[in-house]
């Protein structure tokens, strides 16, 4: 086994001597009901080999049929990425011997991708826009999952044998490939991260995928090479596979820049190879030598007929594109009257889409913003998760806001309701019910508590009767105590003053 013996070069020194060149390949699993070429379900987490059929197991005589939603999703993704859509294209077989595809080939697209020549404008942390050109987006299928048995660490080296689950084999994948990204300089890691983030937000808006990097429904491969300053020929690249979080994308680019520079400055040459990213320390390690595309012996898939989307169909699909993230940002900036800096803070905090969705679900924008950037951000930080991964939906937040607006909850009670939703206790209304959190709005019950408090503190009661209304605070406090905080303090105050006048 190879170890990382190479010297890593300090990042500033890398940039003094080299320019980074990147290419990013993102695989996204579509959340169709069924696989790309057969009617097996695509749900995540089923018992092994229970979502399979003769087609996705590659049994003799089984024939594939293309999933229409898979093609529609590919076209919609292509359109959202400003791509041209092929008038005619075919699937191709990518031949390789590896047990994650029982057919011994992956059905993919080769020189006739369904979408090509597009771009995505990516906003960096300081608001600068960087245009990432898109080479192509093509349709293919996912592979099965391997489990390596024996050996020290569950990896293939030293394994005695492997176990295969084909539930995922055949799940529709769209592979989105950028053109070569140059001119980023020191911002290469940031551009890579910003691109994958923008792509994730776009795919989420299109509602074509769960885009969960932690569950593997979105995966990124990072191609990187270095060019000595002033050179015009690209260096040899490495391909770091399956970088599975936004932060890891940034780290992988940075690490590979330092590693490549170490190899080159010590007089060595970079090997064209696949590398694996190690989440624990942000390093990469050598995988297999990269096969060239000739080695895959691509040829047109003889079991499938060509896909020839009519221009009418493409335009119809263009009409189904939702408001895209950058359009939404422009709109809410105007509607909510946000400065560029305020907008950017919300975007960087991952809050903007959530707030917009909460507003869409009926909440006023001020309340929606306040919940997401204050209390919910605190909860996300405590749990160590991204805001979007909190176990509460924008619709649930909107419901809590509505309950406060209707006077059924105080802000304090509302936070307890949110805690309940986050703890998996169900919808807001169910949490109100089960935790008994409703505001005590029964004036009779409140008056009883008020009378009790006034009797207990006769001197305070006298002051209020003398017109020293400020003294009512002590009584409000006592009533809130007896109602366990479930009273509306404003209403209690009104009742106290009525009572003492």
């Amino acid at each position, binding site marked *: 086994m190879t170890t990382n013996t190479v010297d890593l070069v300090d990042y500033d020194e890398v940039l003094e001597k080299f320019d980074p060149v990147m290419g990013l390949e993102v695989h996204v699993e579509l959340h169709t009901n069924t696989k790309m070429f057969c*009617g097996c379900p695509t749900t995540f987490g089923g018992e092994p080999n229970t979502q399979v059929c003769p087609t996705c197991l590659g049994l003799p005589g089984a024939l594939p049929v293309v999933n229409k939603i898979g093609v529609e999703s590919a076209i919609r993704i292509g359109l959202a990425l400003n791509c041209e859509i092929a008038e005619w294209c075919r699937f191709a077989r990518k031949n390789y011997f590896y047990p994650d595809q029982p057919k011994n080939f992956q059905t993919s697209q080769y020189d006739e991708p369904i979408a090509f020549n597009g771009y995505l404008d990516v906003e960096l942390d300081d608001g600068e826009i960087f245009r990432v050109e898109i080479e192509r987006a093509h349709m293919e299928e996912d592979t099965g999952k391997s489990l390596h048995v024996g050996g020290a660490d569950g990896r293939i080296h030293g394994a005695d044998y492997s176990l295969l689950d084909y539930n995922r084999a055949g799940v529709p994948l769209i592979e989105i490939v950028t053109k070569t990204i140059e001119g980023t300089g020191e911002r290469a890691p940031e551009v890579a991260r910003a691109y994958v983030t923008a792509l994730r937000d776009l795919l989420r808006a299109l509602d074509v995928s769960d885009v969960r990097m932690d569950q593997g429904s979105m995966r990124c491969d990072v191609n990187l090479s270095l060019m000595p300053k002033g050179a015009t020929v690209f260096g040899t690249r490495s391909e770091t596979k399956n970088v599975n979080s936004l932060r890891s994308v940034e780290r992988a680019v940075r690490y590979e820049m330092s590693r490549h520079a170490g190899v080159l400055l010590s007089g060595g040459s970079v090997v064209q190879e696949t590398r694996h990213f190690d989440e624990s320390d942000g390093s990469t390690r050598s995988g297999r030598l990269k096969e060239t595309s000739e080695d895959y012996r691509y040829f047109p898939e003889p079991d499938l007929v*060509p896909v020839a989307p009519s221009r009418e169909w493409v335009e119809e699909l263009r009409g189904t594109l939702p408001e895209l993230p950058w359009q939404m940002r422009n709109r809410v900036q105007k509607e909510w009257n946000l400065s560029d800096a305020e907008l950017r803070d919300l975007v960087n905090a991952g809050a903007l889409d959530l707030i917009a969705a909460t507003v869409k679900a009926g909440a006023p924008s001020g309340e929606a913003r306040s919940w997401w950037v204050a209390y919910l951000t605190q909860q996300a930080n405590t749990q160590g998760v991204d805001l979007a991964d909190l176990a509460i939906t924008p619709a649930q937040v909107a419901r809590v806001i509505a309950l406060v607006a209707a006077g059924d909850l105080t802000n304090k009670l509302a936070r307890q309701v949110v805690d309940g939703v986050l703890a998996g206790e169900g919808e807001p209304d169910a949490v109100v019910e089960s935790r008994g959190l409703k505001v005590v709005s029964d004036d009779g019950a409140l008056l009883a508590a008020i009378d009790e408090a006034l009797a207990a503190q006769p001197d305070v009661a006298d002051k209020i009767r003398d017109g020293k209304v400020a003294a009512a605070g002590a009584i409000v406090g006592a009533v809130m105590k007896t109602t366990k905080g479930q009273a509306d303090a404003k209403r209690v105050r009104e009742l106290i003053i009525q009572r003492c006048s």
Partner: protein
Amino acid sequence: MSTEPPSITRDEVAHLARLARLTVSENELDVFAGQLGDILNAVAKVSEVAGADIPPTSHALPLTNVFREDVVRPGLTQEQALSGAPKSEDGRFAVPRILGEEA
């Protein structure tokens, strides 16, 4: 379109054998190089009759856009799926370890 008769070298046969994970002896490399060359020559005859105006055929039927609705259809049970497997374990297909490769 080349007019040279296609041929295949011994090294190319060795490379193809490696891609196909086949062990081929030194003697077989020569034999297969000759046989594969003959096959390529035979197939190349198509180019002699098909002019530039004839597009290559990849499918026998003149159809496009054959699609399936995105509706789940029953497949196989785990037991059925594994019934043809030489070896299985924990509901999964067991395959020999793969040396020198990593997905």
